[in-house]
């Protein structure tokens, strides 16, 4: 297993947001966390990156990473695409992408990866010298994914990648994610409100309710479950 989590608890001040989660992600697979607002999906991703106070065990490639500093966890190859996209608004698109490769030293490969990101997201190439804050929501989401790719991640944590995007843009983005997973074997842990979309992409799914996992299984089966369909898929 690339990522193994057991007994994960997280706290905001006195409030406990996660009550002992156990889940895992196999090398190069896609896993989705589903749940309503406030179920603890974003908190889970933030806990994995050491961005909230937490306890429990997290193993990446068998090595414990719980309690380590965010920047050290990132250096292991875990790229977090945060909810608000984390754009450096005052910098250019290209500077944003270069920042993604900040932990790497291989100049030539960085340049090649930059070209590849531009090839995958041609819109970003057109706007490379533009202030990133002026991009549309969809473009900023692509920039966030592109920035994460510049790390050459082994695992991507994607927080609501479809949030606020037009349906066509979402489709394009998920197609890109699917391709990245297939061609580069990047593992992905995706948090989504759009359950149908996430279940279609993922192999495995976990359902969260108020900080606990209430259901787990292959994405296809979860998608067929009567209760899940009614609560999260709307048919």
């Amino acid at each position, binding site marked *: 297993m690339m990522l193994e989590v057991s007994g994960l608890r997280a706290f905001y001040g006195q409030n406990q947001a996660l009550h002992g989660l156990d889940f895992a992600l196999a090398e190069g697979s896609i896993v989705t966390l589903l749940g309503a607002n406030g179920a603890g999906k974003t908190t889970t991703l933030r806990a994995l990156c050491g961005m909230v106070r937490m306890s429990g065990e997290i193993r990446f490639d068998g090595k414990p990473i719980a309690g380590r500093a965010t920047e050290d966890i990132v*250096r292991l190859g875990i790229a977090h695409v945060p909810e608000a996209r*984390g754009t450096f608004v005052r910098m250019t698109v290209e500077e944003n992408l270069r920042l993604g490769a*900040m932990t790497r030293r291989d100049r030539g490969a960085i340049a090649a990866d930059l070209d590849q990101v531009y090839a995958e997201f041609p819109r970003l190439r057109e706007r490379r010298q533009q202030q990133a804050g002026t991009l549309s929501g969809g473009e900023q989401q692509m920039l966030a994914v592109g920035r994460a790719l510049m790390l050459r991640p082994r695992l991507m944590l994607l927080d609501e990648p479809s949030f606020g995007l037009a349906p066509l843009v979402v489709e394009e983005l998920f197609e890109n994610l699917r391709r990245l997973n297939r061609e580069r074997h990047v593992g992905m842990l995706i948090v989504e409100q759009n359950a149908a979309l996430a279940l279609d992409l993922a192999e495995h799914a976990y359902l969260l309710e108020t900080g606990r996992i209430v259901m787990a299984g292959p994405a296809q089966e979860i998608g067929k479950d009567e209760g899940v369909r009614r609560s999260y898929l709307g048919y």
Partner: protein
Amino acid sequence: MELLLQQLMAGLATGAIYAAMALAVVMIYQAIDHLNFAQGEMAMFSTFLAWQMIQWGQPYWVAFIGAVVLSFLGGIAIERVLFKPIRNAPILSQLVAFIALYGILNSSAGEIWDFTIKTFPTPFGSAPLFGQNLISTHQAGMIGVTLAMLVLLYFFFRGSRLGLAMRAAAANPDSARLVGIRVGWMLALGWGMSAAVGAVAGMLIAPVVFLEPNMMLGVLLYGFAGAVLGGLSSPGGAVAGGFAVGVIENLAGTFIPYVGRELKLTIALVLIVAVLMVRPSGVFGRAVVSRV
């Protein structure tokens, strides 16, 4: 015409002082998103270090480089010891820490070196430049060094990875951590660099205003005015702003009868307020454009 030209050149010369200080102000602002009210005292302290080394018989340039290096390390130490523990404290607490630092540096300089005025040497000499009497070689040197520092900093921040990382850490610490930048050390580095720039500014200013613990009081105010005028987000703008403040101060003092020498300092404050009303991000500052 002769008088105007003379006042213009004199304005540029004093402007170079403010520009050097404004540059240090913007440096720290870029790194920590706050103004450092102790910036002037830090520069003063650095200048005393250089003075002490010269007193001990070191050549000027050894003392100069020694003071810059010590200030760089001292700036890092101040961040690590004083500001790292209170980084998440409310802005007002941090402000109080800045003022405390101001007091500490000011009184310890007074304690160590006392409050008598000392002369500080200039490496450029103080003869008139090219035989005219508009500007001296020291003033010309001051303008040159300030512009050289600006160019160096520009290439550092725009062209180097470290510069990019520092800007990212200042603009958006959370996102910076998520791309693996060690934000804490970037802040410390920003403090170190701004202390070093301040040291250079202090050593350029000291031959003009004389060395004593309160030498930076007015200068820092003008430096702030220059930085605000040019835009706190733009080192080039801050330098231009510093020069502009120097020129405006001199012209107003000479040509507006009411201002004279007494109200010259007021000009700096009026400028700060006026610019903030018309263009909050400064003349050359970049407003943040964002779409939601």
